């Protein structure tokens, strides 16, 4: 073989703080072990002092089917998707074309592909990437029990400059239970990959200078931790992709911390069970995705009307209907904001990153308990199922918590009309506190009433308790100065931040405002953050511009607004945002 190992110099992408970041993808049909290779690499990177994130591109198959592990590694915290991949290792090309758009390549990309697995797919060739052979299967044929993904892993490690011994350690930790023989084969395969004829990459990742503590977690786990830290001890749920891992993390954790998780017969049961648990005095939650959330809206209205605190986590996936269960999108915003019949004020929160799932979920519990109303938490598949090595995420700011009625409160009225709209809630078991929680409109006592005055008083009280509550500065993350603002929420926040950092490096002053609390809306607070801004770029991952419409409905926006809205599954990449910012700047 006569291979040219020289590479074009890539435009090094940078994490928000400017450190170099490296993006690589490992692909192969479901059985090929691409995902496992990615997980091992992420863990090894972490041990080497790097930060990073790994997402999964998968087909609908339970076993087999196309799959790719998509990683981005950096000496500084990084979580946005890369503009393009520096490296793609293809163990095979099975059905890769189903998600080529999710693995953008360019002339600076290096592709290592097994030549025995057929020709390079047209879109990959079209991207102009440098393709070099890495005959994983042929190489590993010499190793009894050796697997191709280990060859790929060895090659990746070599290119990244990760010591082979480190890889071996991680493989041993993750796959050690498969026995010594398997481990020996893995070691041999790793070595073959590392020894393959490969170019030197123009930039290597030097480990972070700091040896700060790093956590490794998925967004779904972080959400689980958040609700647990927030005090949730009762969970009822029905499995659904991509929310199930929130529940899988919580089930054993609850069982040992005095809590319980019940698998319900459906989402209707799940949310009503959770309402029952919360009525019983135990902070409660359920987790689901779009189709399940749709089934929960009737009971969410019950929680609003009966003033029962509750957290509902929606890990969003592609919609509408069953949509694309394994892929991410931000298109459940509408139903979360407006999905209940009647006037039903409630809380809607959204974590804006993997680590932030912890804080936002915890805060959601606190706000729901304090304000006695359901809190919807909109996570998504991209952050939920991504795994990141990150700095320990901060906890939520404190909330007052549930206002409870003391035993024997004279003339106790469950729905007494108070100035702040919050009425003390009697926990069953409290003498003198017996009352009927009701989804029918009611008097302060809780007796059903169809009278206009009771309806008006209770509607106003339920609205007031949300609108009047001081949510503090955590309702949004804001950074930067200047007359341009990027307005965004949820997953695209990381890309927005990275784009803004790069824009600043180019001399464009940009603010990033990422809303963590979507309801109750905070018009005064946003107005303050937008002071001096005359142009806003709205960034969201939906086809219907749901976030933009929400902003129009609830806020006054700068005179000039542009919207960058695209549905899933393609993530919003920093470079795409940067493009829009600089075009805008040019047009001035």
């Amino acid at each position, binding site marked *: 073989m006569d291979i040219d190992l020289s590479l074009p110099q890539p435009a090094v992408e940078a994490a928000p703080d400017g450190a170099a970041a490296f993006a690589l993808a490992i692909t192969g049909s479901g059985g090929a072990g691409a995902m496992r290779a990615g997980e091992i690499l992420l863990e090894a990177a972490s041990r080497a002092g790097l930060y990073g994130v790994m997402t999964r591109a998968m087909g609908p198959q339970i076993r087999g089917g196309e799959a790719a592990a998509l990683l981005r590694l950096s000496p500084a915290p990084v979580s946005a998707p890369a503009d393009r991949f520096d490296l793609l290792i293809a163990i095979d090309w099975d059905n890769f074309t189903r998600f080529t758009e999710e693995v953008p390549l360019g002339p600076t990309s290096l592709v290592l592909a097994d030549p025995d697995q057929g020709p390079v797919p047209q879109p990959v060739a079209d991207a102009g990437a440098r393709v070099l052979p890495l005959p994983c299967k042929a190489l590993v044929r010499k190793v009894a029990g050796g697997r191709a993904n280990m060859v790929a892993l060895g090659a990746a490690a070599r290119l990244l400059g990760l010591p082979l011994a480190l890889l071996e350690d991680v493989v041993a930790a993750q796959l050690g239970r498969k026995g010594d023989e398997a481990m020996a084969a893995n070691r041999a395969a790793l070595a073959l990959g590392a020894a393959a004829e490969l170019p030197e990459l123009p930039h290597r990742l030097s480990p972070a200078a700091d040896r700060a503590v790093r956590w490794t977690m998925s967004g779904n786990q972080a959400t689980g931790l958040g609700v647990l830290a927030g005090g949730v001890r*009762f969970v009822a749920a029905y499995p659904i992709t991509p929310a199930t891992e929130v529940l899988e993390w919580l089930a054993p954790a609850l069982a040992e*911390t005095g809590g319980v998780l019940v698998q319900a017969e459906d989402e209707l049961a799940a949310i009503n069970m959770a309402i029952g648990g919360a009525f*019983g005095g135990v902070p409660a939650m359920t987790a689901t995705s779009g189709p399940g959330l749709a089934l929960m809206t009737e009971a969410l209205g019950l929680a609003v009307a009966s003033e029962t605190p509750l957290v509902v986590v929606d890990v969003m996936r592609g919609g509408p209907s069953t949509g694309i269960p394994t892929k991410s999108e931000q298109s459940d915003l509408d139903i979360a904001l407006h999905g209940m019949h009647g006037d039903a004020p409630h809380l809607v929160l959204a974590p804006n990153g993997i680590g932030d799932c912890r804080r936002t979920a915890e805060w959601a519990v606190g706000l729901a308990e304090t304000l006695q109303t359901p809190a919807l938490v909109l996570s998504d598949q991209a952050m939920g199922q991504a795994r990141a090595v990150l700095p320990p995420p901060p906890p939520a700011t404190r909330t007052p918590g549930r206002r409870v009625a003391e035993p024997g409160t004279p003339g106790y009225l469950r729905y007494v009309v108070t100035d702040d709209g919050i009425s003390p809630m009697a926990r069953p078991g409290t003498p003198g506190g017996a009352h009927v929680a009701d989804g029918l409109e009611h008097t302060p006592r809780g007796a059903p009433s169809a009278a206009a005055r009771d309806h008006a008083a209770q509607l106003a009280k339920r609205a007031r308790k949300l609108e009047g509550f001081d949510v503090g500065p955590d309702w949004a993350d804001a950074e930067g100065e200047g007359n341009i603002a990027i307005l965004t929420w949820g997953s695209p926040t990381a890309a927005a931040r990275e784009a803004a950092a790069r824009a600043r490096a180019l001399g464009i002053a940009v603010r990033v405002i990422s809303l963590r609390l979507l309801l109750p809306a905070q018009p005064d607070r946003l107005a303050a953050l937008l002071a001096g801004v005359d142009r806003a770029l709205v960034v969201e991952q939906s086809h219907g511009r749901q976030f933009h419409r929400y902003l129009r409905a609830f806020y006054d926006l700068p005179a000039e607004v542009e919207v960058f809205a695209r549905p899933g599954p393609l993530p919003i990449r920093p470079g795409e945002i940067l493009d829009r910012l600089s075009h805008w700047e040019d047009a001035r």
Partner: protein
Amino acid sequence: MNAIAPQEYKSDLKPIWCPGCGDYSVLTALAKALAELGRPREEIALVSGIGCSSRLPAYTSVYGFHGVHGRALALATGLKIARPDLTVLAAGGDGDGLSIGGNHFLHACRRNVDMTYLLMDNQVYGMTKGQASPTTAPDWCESKLTPLGPGVSPVMPLHLALASGVNFFARGFSGNPNELARLILEGIRHPGFSVIHVLSPCVTFRPEQRAWKQAVHAETVPPETEPAAALARFAADDGFATGVLFAGTRKAFMPERATRREWRDYEARFAA
């Protein structure tokens, strides 16, 4: 025990029920059963759905939840699992429990959480003014929605409950509130999920149900304890035998919960 008068378990709200509705007597029987049970009001919770019958909680003085249509059993399940120390009851109509709520009925029977369900059956949707319910005879033609009759074979709550694994099943009649009170009390005391199927006439939309007085008859054979035997024995049940018909021995469902760890222990694992 039993220092409390039945009246203490009633509230001072005037029921919205029609004069003569069977549900008045269900309320009476429930109050009597609770008084016998003797637990303080605040240790009891009654959950319901939507329907005339589901208005029950407001007329009692215990903790209550008047939820949405069809979901009483789910809400009660959550409450009982979260708060095993409470005595939890649920109540509702044949429409609430067997039409829109049929799935939760089925799964409550299987799950066998220790609570008691008053299924107040009048073979009609009372609250929405007289449509056929799952227990309505196929040839009942009084509803404008099904002028030729629903034409569907009725659900037999006993069969459905047994097939679904219920642990206790009794049938009572609102016209006999003393027996009904006894059945409710037995249901509460029996571990696991107990169904009290109450024939409670709707005098407004099913005036012919006044004849139920003549139709009911006390079951004299002792309750069955094996599901298979019960299914066999009651296969041809006429629906009017009152008394405890089945009393199973399955262990009530209640997940263990330990408090061996702090949530921070779980947090710490991410730093590994």
